């Protein structure tokens, strides 16, 4: 006897909803899924009539489903939004080809305008050119920093009112866990917000999928036969984010409300008065939000343009000091000169006495520094880190 849908009590159930554990049929699932997102948009006032909204489109499952659902809801509930797809082309031979093709098909399928901006347009450098200049070991810093700003820079240049991203409940919970484990208070505050960057300097980013489970996004895409592109595995079990994700999934297997519980915990946490928080200002060069005089992307670009590509592959505050020192002296600050270790570039062979030995890749954490992880696990098929861990 097939199980019946708990909503209509008529048709056969084909999905167990992760949030509630209830069995639902296909039509009731679509309806509940879309309704909940509509509800999130309404209660959090994510959009205002007439706004120009860029949907950050990577061709992946989250942004593909987001584009489809926003388009649907905009028509069904007459939000009056001017929606379009915004894609970033990092300029890596072969890497974006398939995903950009997917986005181009989405443009046709959903009848939404598409704008593709390249790193060349945004920064004057393609990732290929950067890799050529700095080699593969440090490109992670570049791709992480550049990717984080790319959508904002692109949106700024296009006069967009809001950026909508496909970050889902699982992503948010995972990021909360990571920020707690790393003691990153500033990001912990930001990552739980459903609207971020809501200040005069930045374009607000909204997360309509903040309470939407990944399982349901994937199931929705599958049943609706939405066309999306999967990249090579980014959650290799060794990466920090991969551990956080696996941990979450294990918890969820025991307690189905885990994801929502963690998001709730993250939202409830507040920073005690007197705790020193980084002061956010605007980058003097590009106007992007930054905790230093110059934002990290501008520092990295400065290094590239001056032929000092290692500049900025480290902590921004230190780099800002270095930027001042650069003209005085170009010598390595580290004591371990013999191993070519310097503050900004810690090779795997650095001796354990090196003070910078444990410094991790900002975006892939232990992955690059752990001696147990071979280079090719990461770089075999891709030239850069393929992460959707873009700042939440």
């Amino acid at each position, binding site marked *: 006897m097939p199980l019946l849908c708990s909503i209509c009590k008529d048709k056969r159930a*084909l999905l*167990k909803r992760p949030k509630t554990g209830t069995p639902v049929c296909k039509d009731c699932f679509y309806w509940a899924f879309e309704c909940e997102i509509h509800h999130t948009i309404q209660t959090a006032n994510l959009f205002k009539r007439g706004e120009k909204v860029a949907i950050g489109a990577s061709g*992946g499952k989250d942004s593909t489903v987001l584009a489809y659902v926003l388009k649907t809801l905009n028509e069904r509930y007459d939000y009056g939004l001017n929606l379009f797809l915004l894609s970033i082309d990092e300029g890596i031979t072969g890497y974006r080809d398939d995903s950009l093709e997917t986005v181009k098909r989405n443009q046709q399928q959903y009848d939404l305008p598409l704008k593709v901006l390249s790193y060349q347009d945004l920064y004057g450098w393609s990732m290929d050119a950067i890799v050529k200049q700095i080699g593969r070991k440090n490109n992670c810093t570049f791709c992480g920093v550049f990717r984080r700003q790319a959508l904002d820079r692109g949106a700024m240049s296009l006069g967009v009112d809001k950026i909508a991203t496909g970050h889902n409940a699982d992503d948010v919970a995972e990021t909360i866990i990571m920020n707690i484990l790393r003691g990153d208070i500033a990001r912990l505050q930001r990552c739980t917000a459903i609207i971020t960057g809501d200040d005069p300097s930045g374009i607000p980013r909204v997360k309509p999928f903040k309470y939407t489970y990944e399982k349901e996004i994937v*199931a929705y895409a599958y049943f609706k036969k939405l066309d999306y592109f*999967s990249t090579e595995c980014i959650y290799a079990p060794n990466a920090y984010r991969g551990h956080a994700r696996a941990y979450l999934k294990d918890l969820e297997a025991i307690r189905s409300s885990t994801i929502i519980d963690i998001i709730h915990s993250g939202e409830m946490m507040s920073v005690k008065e007197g705790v020193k928080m980084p002061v956010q200002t605007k980058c003097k060069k590009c106007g992007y939000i930054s905790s230093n005089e110059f934002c990290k992307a501008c520092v990295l670009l400065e290094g590239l343009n001056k032929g000092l590509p290692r500049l900025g592959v480290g902590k921004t505050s230190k780099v800002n000091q270095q930027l001042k020192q650069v003209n005085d002296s170009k010598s390595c600050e580290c004591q371990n000169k013999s191993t070519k270790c310097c503050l900004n570039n810690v090779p795997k062979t650095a001796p354990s006495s090196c003070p910078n030995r444990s410094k991790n890749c900002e975006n892939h954490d232990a992955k690059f520094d752990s001696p147990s992880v071979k280079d090719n696990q990461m770089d075999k098929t891709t030239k850069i880190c393929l992460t959707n861990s873009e700042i939440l």
Partner: protein
Amino acid sequence: MALTVILEFLGGAEFLFGHVKHHTVSIEKGENKLNISQLLMWIKENLLQERLELFMQGCTVRPGILVLVNDVDWSLLGELTYEIEENDRITFISTLHGG
């Protein structure tokens, strides 16, 4: 006796199976029934090409992989204990690949 089963690996799970999404396989099961738990062992030994840990965890699929039997969530069908029938289509969709 052999059982014909259609296996699909999607959403990035296909990378572990030589980038092939659809497999029609014939599994020798003798007189016994075959459940998904046994199917997983069979997949592990006969089909999986790399990185077992990205597909399985212990004796079940890695959390984060959605499993459907003829387009029905296996959570509604007893998961590992579901007894496979001739021409069943079993779909494994990774939810862990690039957003």
